[in-house]
């Protein structure tokens, strides 16, 4: 994982969020819920290419990337974002319906800051990942 800014926290001002996921019901629900919790979902993307483009254009504060993006891999997108100069400093959190355990090694090898299960997605859970020291960010977001 990439070393995050020490003590990084989502600021009180509206955090600008990009969600990359290929599932419509989830996009609609997560957007509504996170907006309701005071986050500003500035865009959603349904493919890795679209996600990369939105990230470059909008420079969101945080990007949520689904591990399984249809034919694309969320791990690959996280790697691409970290490798592109323009997006290398953006925070990325991986999400999935699968439990973190299943992908633990791939998550810890990824430059993403951590993982949040989709069923536990909330502003609080995202802040938990950002709050933890870098070495501990792939732990269960709810625990």
């Amino acid at each position, binding site marked *: 994982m990439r070393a995050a800014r020490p003590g990084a926290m989502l600021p009180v001002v509206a955090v600008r969020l990009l969600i990359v996921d290929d599932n419509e019901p989830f996009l*609609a629900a997560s957007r*509504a819920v996170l907006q309701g919790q005071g986050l500003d979902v500035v865009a959603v993307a349904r493919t890795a290419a679209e996600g990369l483009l939105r990230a470059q254009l909008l420079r969101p504060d945080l990007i949520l990337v689904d591990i399984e993006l249809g034919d694309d891999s969320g791990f690959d997108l996280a790697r691409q974002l970290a490798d592109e100069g323009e997006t290398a400093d953006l925070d990325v959190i991986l999400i999935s*319906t*699968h439990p973190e355990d299943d*992908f633990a090694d*791939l998550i810890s090898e990824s430059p993403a800051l951590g993982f949040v299960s989709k069923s536990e997605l909330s502003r609080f859970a995202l802040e938990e990942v950002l709050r933890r020291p870098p070495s501990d960010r792939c732990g269960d977001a709810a625990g």
Partner: protein
Amino acid sequence: MDDEHAALRRVATLVARGSPPEDVFAAVTQEVGQLLPVDFAIMARYEFGGTATYVASWESREARFEVGGRWPLEGNNLVTRVFETGSPARLDSYADATGPMGVLGRESGFRAAVATPIVVDGHLWGAVVAGSTGDGPLPADTEESLADFTELLATAIANAESRAGLARLAEEQAALRRVATLVAQGAPSEDVFAAVTEEVGQLFPVDFVGMARYEPDYSETIVGSWGGAAERFTVGTRLSLGGHNLATIVFETGRPSRRDTYADASGQVGETAREAGFRSSVGTPMLVEGRVWGVVIACSSTDDPLPADLEARLAGFTELLATAVANAESRAALAASRARIVAAADRARRRFERDLHDGTQQRLVALMLELGAARATVPPELSELGSELGRVADGLATVFDEVREISRGIHPAILAKGGLDQALKALARRSAVPVQLDLRPAGRLPTNIEVAAYYVVSEALANAAKHACASLVYVWRDADDATLRLAIHDDGIGGADPTRGSGLVGLSDRIETLGGRFEVISLAGAGTTLLIEIPLRIRSDVAPPEA
């Protein structure tokens, strides 16, 4: 008369000693030539297909006669006449002689001659012709004198043939038995093909033995090759059928066939054979379940004709070959059908997992998120409603977890995303019994092999926790270019019976479907060890029958 007795006695001694037939032939033509008032004596053997071959000759200084070659039985000449009548014959003037043998006699300076048949075991074997280069007919008793010699000749030939026949029969039976043993052992078809071409090559007076499989596109593939011209017909070579050649004739007629010249051979097979220097050949079809599967062809590069009964003797081998091919085809068809069934089941499981993940699970997550948002808006005075919604949310979370478990059991998503090693690590993390993983470096493997290996480890870990009361499981995985190897050992109670417990049987079926080996070692008190080997390369065997 005394001279004749002495000559007959000398020949009889040779025959009684069991001298080779060629020696007896040479002695007879010489004795006949010297005893009778003749300038030449020739011995001819009748061959398959209405021809005759000169096998020995004697001539005085006046005659010029070349032994050798094969001649058609036609025209007015003694060899043909004896063949047609089975009786002695006489030609008083070669001026009337016709047919290739008659013309040859006239050109060799023959003027008059007599001939008597050689009858071996009631069957017309050949003829002896003796004659002069001078004018005038031969004495009236010449046929009679000649007949005394041909009787001795017949005895010599019968003896030699029965000795040779017995020895040959024994060799042939031994060769057939060796091939039959290979077939019965279920040896790979290519081994059986190689054995047959070699046995046939060593058994018969041939220079090359080839075996080919007929392909649906009017071509043949060489599947066995032995002898001098093998480099022109290497195994795997594909040749088009068509034109005038043995392989095409056998394919089209489904019957044995023979060629005595390659001068008029055409088509890719015929031209390659002519370039290889073949002079004569015999081909026998291999009939597998009523269709002409292939052909065995034995070729000679010399002028000597191939044995007349070669077709019949090759048939013994082609019947064994047909059995080997039919066996291999049914084995291959069975294995392919097992593999298809397993692959179809795996595809179906992957599809269920995808459908659950993309549909049901995403909708459940969306509902959970929306319910969570709704709960957050419940005003504090409606605490009853708040806790009601909380119970619904808990129930939903339980359903979500259950669906997730079911989905993982159907097909683990990590296998597709991360490969076997990541999936094994995930299994190890979830295992109720601690797992020590020893994964040697290896790249991604074919999906069906990764799936099989995953299920083996998954089942082994479940057994270790449920039945073996193990406290540690050791999982070792190694792979090179050719083989994936897995060893799984637990320190539990052992005594697992692979023939009961359907789990182990199912795993063993799955591994065998991939052509692999599955071994269970489970002594009471010594833990359980599973050893698995899966080949990563598919063995080339007989092509499955055309669908």
